[in-house]
């Protein structure tokens, strides 16, 4: 038998009967049905599985369930406030910063944490995006529109626009 773990996922406490060695990625997708989080490389290199653990962006393929017990996790499903998208999501849509969509949830989650933390503003905003999002790889297309969207979202957040 496995002792139940309690993880607060997108604001809701969830109890999961999972091995503490089970990847958080698998707990989210298979046990909790939150398939917005994608598995890309499964080795912590591509960032597609990025979620927030106590507010910090992490690769959910490199976190095991035991490490998340008693902690708060935010997935892409938890970024929006009801029907109101997070600024990063809205700008990714508005500026075409997505193609096949596998990397997009990880980019949205990582960028949301970064811009909510006050980064990606000012004269070197684009360079900040390129450094802070360096762990999120897109294999479809270039990064220009993604960078455009995150810089715009950072400006939205700075203006207090949700």
């Amino acid at each position, binding site marked *: 038998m496995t002792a139940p773990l309690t993880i607060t996922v997108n604001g809701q406490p969830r109890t999961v009967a999972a091995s503490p*060695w089970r990847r958080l990625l698998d707990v989210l997708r298979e046990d909790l049905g939150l398939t917005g989080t994608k598995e890309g490389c499964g*080795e912590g290199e591509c960032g597609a599985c990025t979620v927030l653990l106590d507010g910090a962006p992490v690769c959910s393929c*490199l*976190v095991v369930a035991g*490490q998340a017990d008693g902690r708060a996790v935010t997935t892409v499903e938890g970024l929006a406030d009801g029907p109101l998208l997070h600024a990063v999501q809205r700008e990714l849509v508005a500026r075409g910063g997505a193609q096949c969509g596998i990397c997009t949830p990880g980019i949205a989650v990582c960028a949301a944490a970064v811009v909510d933390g006050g980064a990606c503003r000012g004269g070197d905003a684009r360079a900040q995006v390129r450094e802070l999002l*360096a762990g999120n790889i897109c294999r479809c297309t270039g990064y220009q529109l993604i960078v455009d969207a995150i810089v715009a979202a950072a400006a939205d957040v700075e203006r207090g626009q949700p």
Partner: protein
Amino acid sequence: MTAYLRPTDDAHAIALRAAHADYLVLAGGTDLLVAAHHKPVPVGILDIAGRFAGISVDADAARIGAGTTWRAIATSAELAATWPILPAAAREVGALQIQTRGTIGGNLATSSPVGDGLPVLLALDATIHLASVRGARAVPYRAFCTGYRTTALGADELITAVTVPRPAPGTYLGWRKVGTRAAQSISKVMAACALELVDGRIAAARFGVGAVAARPIRAAAAEAAATGQPPTAATAAAVAAALRHDITPIDDVRSTAAYRLEVAGNLLARFVTNAGRAQG
């Protein structure tokens, strides 16, 4: 089922380590948990994430708790002011998602030849602090890593902290990582230096190099070639030539022995000439 223990404080972590020497000690997990679902399930896990964390600086040294994340090191103004190569190296460990979880203690425990934080710790003459229920001890990092992914860490010990002494005035610090890209990719060659300049000469030299031997090493022959010499192009060339006696690079999937030998020499030579330029 796998036992999972999360200590309530640092002393508790040390006690649990003594009681469960067969458990996997897990900090951030960014190395140990790669492809965890394909690995054998450990007998038990001792989760020390968040333990032994924090940075403090006094007149003599900086003390970095073993559980301090690379992100905390990368963003430390106190470290940047005196030991800028530590935050510089931290910013090149993986990417943000790795830096928020990965710890300096984890890098030390693994002591991979390509551990990105390790050449800098060698150049800064870091001391590693260990603790067990038997007591605490301190080991210079150059003696801590004993071979390919082997260390002096006892089965009942945990790494608690790293200390780096304050460099002497006029010390030039350098760091350079060479890989296919700055983020994520495993390094082909890494080098760090601390060159203490007194009256226009290199009074003391420490070079730490990575990915060019079975473990991160100090380059003793290169250091000898630099010591007592002015930071000129001639000294730089002598240092690069001497480095060939220190390192044993290999051909692998990421690079070739010939490339690593050439580039490692170039990195050290550039440190010397940059130090000359920095002293004006």
